């Protein structure tokens, strides 16, 4: 599969890199997470969300 064909795939091929597992339980962007939690506390989720 060439690069063009790879780019056509919506779901990308992801190479699993075990060295990235060190980030699994680490919050790399704590400020953003805080903003997200603040938003969820104040605004919550949209009423129109799809229920599965």
């Amino acid at each position, binding site marked *: 599969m060439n*690069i063009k064909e*790879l*780019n*056509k795939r*919506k*779901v*990308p*091929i*992801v*190479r*699993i*890199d*075990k060295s*990235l*597992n060190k*980030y*699994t339980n680490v*919050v*790399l*962007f704590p*400020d*953003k*997470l805080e*903003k*997200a*939690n603040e*938003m*969820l*506390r104040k*605004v*919550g*989720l*949209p*009423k*129109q*969300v*799809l229920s*599965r």
Partner: protein
Amino acid sequence: MNLPRYQLAGNDKLTTFEFVSEGPKGRIQKLVQFTSTNLKDVYNLAFGDKDKVTGKIDDTIISNNGDSEKVLATVTATIYAFTDKYPDAFIYATGSTKSRTRLYRMGITKYLSEVENDFIIFGETKEGWDIFEKDTNYFGFLIQRKNY
């Protein structure tokens, strides 16, 4: 999206992804992370540059590596990969600055006709949430995968 993008590496759980931006400023390692929030199934999406020397991650830096579209297309690809594994996930994203949030809005607007086949996108306003519309400013975005 049929756009050029970078090759991705991910951790076992597909919650953290890495790719390398290539441009006039050289090779810049980027990390994308989906982090659980206080609400079940809602994840925060953030990405930034990894400093080669210190290893620290910075989501405020402006790389100016001339590849912002390719970077955004790559980040979008991580959303496909993540929601393939976690189809019930809601993903919240906002920029580290107003101008960066605006950049995300412009990116969504540009490819809205393509991504709205696969995702429902909401925009955060003062009043709450609206279905994403072009030419509207939002504080942040919430994304939900369709077709599951």
